[in-house]
């Protein structure tokens, strides 16, 4: 037998028993503290753990023409995301890279860039992925759970820059924009309009992003949905633009540099607006490459400039209409008769006329034949102050207030202007050049359309706009003060008739734009050819290059009095306004034919600004029907054909599983 039979003292066993009791009471207290006292706090933490808020991006509103035809649409595009809560092995990175058609270096480079950001923020590996890449992600959800996609609504603009300057483009809000009070509610990464209508009506088009709360596990894998605050899509915006007329305007400028703007002077509605050279806003819709951006910025033709509102150039002879208003209203021009031997001396210097108009040139002949000598003389008689008074009243030297961003004001010189700008005295000799729209006077195409349209309307000028004010939310409507929306310049009926009749003669035989005559259409207007450099400089320095050729202008109205349409067209290096006049005639003809029920059918003709031979593209939205129109009514059909690359078109059908 082993050892003693003596028992252990019960006291020690009891001590152990109490010790254990104390330990268990302690543990029970620990549970009490966590589960009863702390249950609210920890319950919250547990919820926060597993609930993730995922943004749902709101699509921007569509942009329509005045008849409801779609100009700008959206297409759903998928971006590939990498969730970074768990580190990704090199092997997986290699798989991901090859599945997304990237090199492993590109993926690593992308990850390196965001190395400092919070772990729970996913990284966008690739924007606008192809259906093949989408299929890769879908089929590898189990092996590569860190790879996910997000739906982004991207802008689908008309191809090849159609109406690009009018529409503008979108981009991520820049840091400097975020510092402005206007953008204080935006956060980095938000996509906002950066130009054109997209910018000026951004708040309306943008909508509000929603969010979805999902249940996730510790690896961020979605395991269920809680609730959803749907995104509020942006409101659609109907423009005053007429697609048919816009097409005519784009065609008129085809192959040239310049700008065209068509207004309805009765309302101020912009019917068409185009600028050349063009850029393709679709290139901004995903992510523009640095090379492409610098090419756009450094292009001497300045493709990003909307010349219809941003080009400030001497108006040339178009200004003679404004001179005529001033001269007639001041009672000077009625009695003025000049002799034009091809120019005249003023203040000891010879001012040349482009032609010899002979003796007895009166205003009724001076306008259609654009006699410089007559208007030199008229300018001398009026003096700069009276000229400036009328020109300013007609909107020159100030912004028209169109609802497009970055409009410029042009310059209407006067004694005060010169004193303010150059701290110099005005010389009477400078007035002579101003009389034919040269010298310091500069205007935008929009200003000229606005002014000439107003004159032809008997002196009523209406603020140009591209959106219907009545359809805008109240806070976006322009302040409709009497002075803001409508300006009245008193023009005596006799003078009004005289000027508009003279303008009608411009397109008649003997006028400067006789070749732009439209049979059966009351087409009136005024040509202008503005020198880029003076004739003397040209001869002295032998400047003969393209860039020194004259700019051609034409402002046309139809009909001559109380016109329904005014079109101003600028052809840079166009040499003479006659060229511009023929192009304006095309636009006006398209307008009249459409109005008369013989649609120009421009929209039907397969106007397809597409380079041939693009295999991987598909035609979309070939014909649109006006909403509410009887089906098949040819007059209500319109549209254009735009090709988009196949990958984008097919994304529409490659919806994620589970979508209805």
């Amino acid at each position, binding site marked *: 037998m082993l050892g003693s039979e003596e028992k252990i003292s019960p006291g020690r066993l009891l001590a152990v028993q109490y010790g254990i009791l104390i330990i268990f009471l302690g543990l029970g207290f620990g549970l009490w503290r*966590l589960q009863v006292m702390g249950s609210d706090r920890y319950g919250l933490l547990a919820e926060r753990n597993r609930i993730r808020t995922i943004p749902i991006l709101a699509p921007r509103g569509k942009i329509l023409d005045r008849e409801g035809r779609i100009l700008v649409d959206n297409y759903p595009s998928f971006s590939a995301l990498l969730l970074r809560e768990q580190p990704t092995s090199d092997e997986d990175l290699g798989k991901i890279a090859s599945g997304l058609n990237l090199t492993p270096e590109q993926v690593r480079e992308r990850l390196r860039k965001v190395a400092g950001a919070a772990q729970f923020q996913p990284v966008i590996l690739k924007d606008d992925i192809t259906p093949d890449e989408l299929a890769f992600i879908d089929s590898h959800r189990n092996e590569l759970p860190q790879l996910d996609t997000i739906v982004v609504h991207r802008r689908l603009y008309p191809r090849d820059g159609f109406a690009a300057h009018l529409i503008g483009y979108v981009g991520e809000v820049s840091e400097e924009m975020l510092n402005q009070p206007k953008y204080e509610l935006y956060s980095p990464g938000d996509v906002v309009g950066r130009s054109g209508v997209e910018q000026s009506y951004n708040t309306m088009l943008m909508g509000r992003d929603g969010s979805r709360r999902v249940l996730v596990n510790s690896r961020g894998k979605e395991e269920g949905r809680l609730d959803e605050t749907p995104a509020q899509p942006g409101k659609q915006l109907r423009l005053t633009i007429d697609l048919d007329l816009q097409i005519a305007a784009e065609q008129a400028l085809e192959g040239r540099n310049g700008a065209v703007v068509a207004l309805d002077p009765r309302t101020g509605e912009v019917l068409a607006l185009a600028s050349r050279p063009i850029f393709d806003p679709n290139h901004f819709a995903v992510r523009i490459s640095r090379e492409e951006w610098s090419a756009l910025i450094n292009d001497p033709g300045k493709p990003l400039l909307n010349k219809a509102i941003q080009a400030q150039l001497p108006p040339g002879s178009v200004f003679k209409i404004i001179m005529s208003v001033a001269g007639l209203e001041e009672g000077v021009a009625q009695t003025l008769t000049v002799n034009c031997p091809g120019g005249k001396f003023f203040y000891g210097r010879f001012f040349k006329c482009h032609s010899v108009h002979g003796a007895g040139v009166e205003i009724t002949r001076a306008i259609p034949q654009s006699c410089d000598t007559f208007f030199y003389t008229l300018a001398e008689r009026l003096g700069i102050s009276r000229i400036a008074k009328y020109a300013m009243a007609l909107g020159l030297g100030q912004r028209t207030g169109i609802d497009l961003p970055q409009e410029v004001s042009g310059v209407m010189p006067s004694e005060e202007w010169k004193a303010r700008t150059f701290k110099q005295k005005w010389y009477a000799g400078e007035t002579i050049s101003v009389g034919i729209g040269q010298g310091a006077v500069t205007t935008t195409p929009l200003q000229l359309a606005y002014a000439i349209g107003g004159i032809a309307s008997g002196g009523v000028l209406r603020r140009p706009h591209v959106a219907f004010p009545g359809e805008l939310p109240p806070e976006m409507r322009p302040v409709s003060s009497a002075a803001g929306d409508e300006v009245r310049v008193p023009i005596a009926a006799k003078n009004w008739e005289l000027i508009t009749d003279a303008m009608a003669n411009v397109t008649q035989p003997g006028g400067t734009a006789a070749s732009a005559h439209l049979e059966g259409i009351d087409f009136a207007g005024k040509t202008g050819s503005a020198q880029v450099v003076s004739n003397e400089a040209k001869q002295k320095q032998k400047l003969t290059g393209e860039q020194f050729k004259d700019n051609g202008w034409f402002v046309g109205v139809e009909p001559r009095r109380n016109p329904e349409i005014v079109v101003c067209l600028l052809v840079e290096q166009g040499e003479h306004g006659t060229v511009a006049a023929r192009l304006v005639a095309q636009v006006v003809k398209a307008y009249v034919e459409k109005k008369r029920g013989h649609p120009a059918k421009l929209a039907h003709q397969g106007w397809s600004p597409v380079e041939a031979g693009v295999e991987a593209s598909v035609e979309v939205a070939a014909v649109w029907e006006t909403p509410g129109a009887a089906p098949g009514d040819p007059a209500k059909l319109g549209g254009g054909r735009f090709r988009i690359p196949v990958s984008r078109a097919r994304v529409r059908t490659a919806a994620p599983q589970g979508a209805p």
Partner: protein
Amino acid sequence: MRRFLSFRDFDWLLLGFILLICALGVLEVYSTTFSTRFAGMHIKQVYWILVGLGLMFAVSLVNYHSLLERSHWLWIASVLALVAVLILGHKALGARRWIGLPGGMHFQPSEWVKLVVILALARYFHEMKQREAALADIAKTGLIAGVPMLLVLAQPDLGTALTYVPIFLMALFLGGLRLRHAVALGMLACVLGAGGWLFVLKDYQKARVNTFLNPENDPQGKGYQIQQALIAVGSGGIWGKGLTKGTQTQGEFLPMTHTDFAFASFAEEQGFVGACGVLLLYFMVLARLIQNAQTAPDRAGTFIVMGVVAVLAFHVLVNVGMVVRFMPVTGIPLPLMSYGGSSVLFMFLALGLVMNIRMRRFVN
């Protein structure tokens, strides 16, 4: 001597509590694994429990005195096994803890060695003549527990190594430790602890202690486990979220839900009421064991049962303490609830010894 040996003397009440804990454990293993790649583990756990029950009955039939008589051989075999693990062991997560056996089985000796240490200490104090332990006794028993402990520590497996400490302390306490020796031992422990912190503990072990002290400092890194366990337990509230409904458990925010953090999962899904119920069951088991220790036929029997009490109480204290933030994360399973064959078999073997002693309480 075996005249009156009968299963009537078996502690059926104790076995009832034990099986209740096992049942809750199986339920929780099911709840934490059914949707993961470990699905079906609760069935395996049931098999381990059945095997454990068989072992328990088998062990209860062998007179514990015959085991005590061979305890020195068992001890030598244990030390050799631990050395073998250090040399031949399967390396996983930076530690060698088991030897692979044919058929994919693992042999993890550090669990069984606990029993051997209990037996060896019981024999030593059984044979000790005087009522109070002298310094020489402390030193000798210290070697009996310390050698295997250091070998386990070298694997390294701090958690299991620490379980040898309560066995040793319990034996010393019952064997008649004097107050001044206790104080001296405490001071020695402090010195050894400081030395161990500086020279023995691996960085990951130090990190665990650091994060235990301040888990909020680094919620995505080292403190993640503690923080998630606290959230799991706390969010369970009074009544719990329900079986298979624990968001922390099912969302896999909580790691090792069916092993080390089984109690946290249980507390999340069954709430304060359920967790306290389990604590009460463990307390009943321990109280019942202590009662068996009192009625043991001899000193050796008492020492063996109290050794089991020490191991079980220590496991519960450390595992539940870890979950309620009283203890650092040590990787010690909760006996009978956490999934794991070695742990289950050890507990039932220990229970077999207890039953063995109880059945012989009237035998003399």
